[in-house]
């Protein structure tokens, strides 16, 4: 039967082993980063079952394309991008919502001060205050580390629309998670410059 102990080492080493056909090495990568991918998909708005299905698909696609991962960035970021693309494909296919939807009434976010204090650092709870489009754009840019331009290209919507969604989403998150004194008016400027 051989050695049953899972391989150890850096992600890049495991990826190299996986590229050589070692499925146990890839299994270790799944073990390490599965939760991050599942979490990102849920934060993007996928329900738990869908998130898990897409996360599994993302790892299978990742295994097929593992030779393309050369270790220039983190494996987690690489596999998250694959998962995000798969989720976006599903969203667009099912046309669940229009990404150019009008902004929601922001009064509901601003008025729940007591609850906001109670869950100040709970990102998952805070994300629920965002519209689907805002949640998706914020999660793509801050969770999957996409630039605004990348998100606009993949979502096939104008860059300005992505920026608007991100800005509104950040404002809502800040109102929910950060005290007013910590809120800087142009937090997303840096990311916009990347796009």
């Amino acid at each position, binding site marked *: 039967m051989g050695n049953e102990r899972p391989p150890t080492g850096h992600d890049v080493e495991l990826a190299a082993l996986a590229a050589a056909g070692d499925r146990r090495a890839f299994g270790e990568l799944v073990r390490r980063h599965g939760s991050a991918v599942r979490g990102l998909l849920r934060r993007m708005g996928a329900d738990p079952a869908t998130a898990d299905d897409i996360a599994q698909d993302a790892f299978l696609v990742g295994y097929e394309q593992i030779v393309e991962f050369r270790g220039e960035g983190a494996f987690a970021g690489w596999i998250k991008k694959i998962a995000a693309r798969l989720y976006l494909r599903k969203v667009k296919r099912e046309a669940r919502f229009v990404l150019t939807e009008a902004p929601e009434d922001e009064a509901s976010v601003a008025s729940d001060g007591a609850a906001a204090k109670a869950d100040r*650092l709970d990102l998952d709870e805070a994300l629920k205050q965002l519209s689907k489009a805002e949640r998706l754009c914020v999660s793509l840019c*801050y969770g999957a580390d996409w630039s605004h331009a990348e998100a606009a290209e993949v979502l096939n919507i104008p860059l300005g629309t992505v920026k608007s969604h991100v800005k509104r989403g950040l404002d809502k998150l800040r109102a929910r998670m950060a005290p007013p004194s*910590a809120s800087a008016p142009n937090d997303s400027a840096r990311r916009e410059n990347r796009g």
Partner: protein
Amino acid sequence: MADLDFETQLSRLYGQAPVFRDSELFAQQVTARLDRGWALRRVLIGGTGVVAGFAAAVQLISARFTEELSQVSHEGAQQLSVGLEQLTHRYDQMFNLGGSETLWVGAALAILALAFAVTRLVDEL
């Protein structure tokens, strides 16, 4: 959090993977799907190999069979023509030697044989 840039803080929070109680199960499901995929791929490759091998074997055998058949038929045709030549030669010799009496005797024997065959056939029925 007041001292931290909100954007940086948000990226950091996104980077913190939630803890799932079934994370080990998830990993097992992925590796099982990987193994299943590879097993299916092996079966498909093996099946394709078997079909291709069978087709190749059929082609090979049929090619040899056709070749041998044509060789046999070629030889057979040659032997048949030789046999026919010998037969016609002897037939000519027979008529040359015995004349028309031999022909009548042969015809009489043939009629006798035919009568015998007919009576046997009637008995059988």
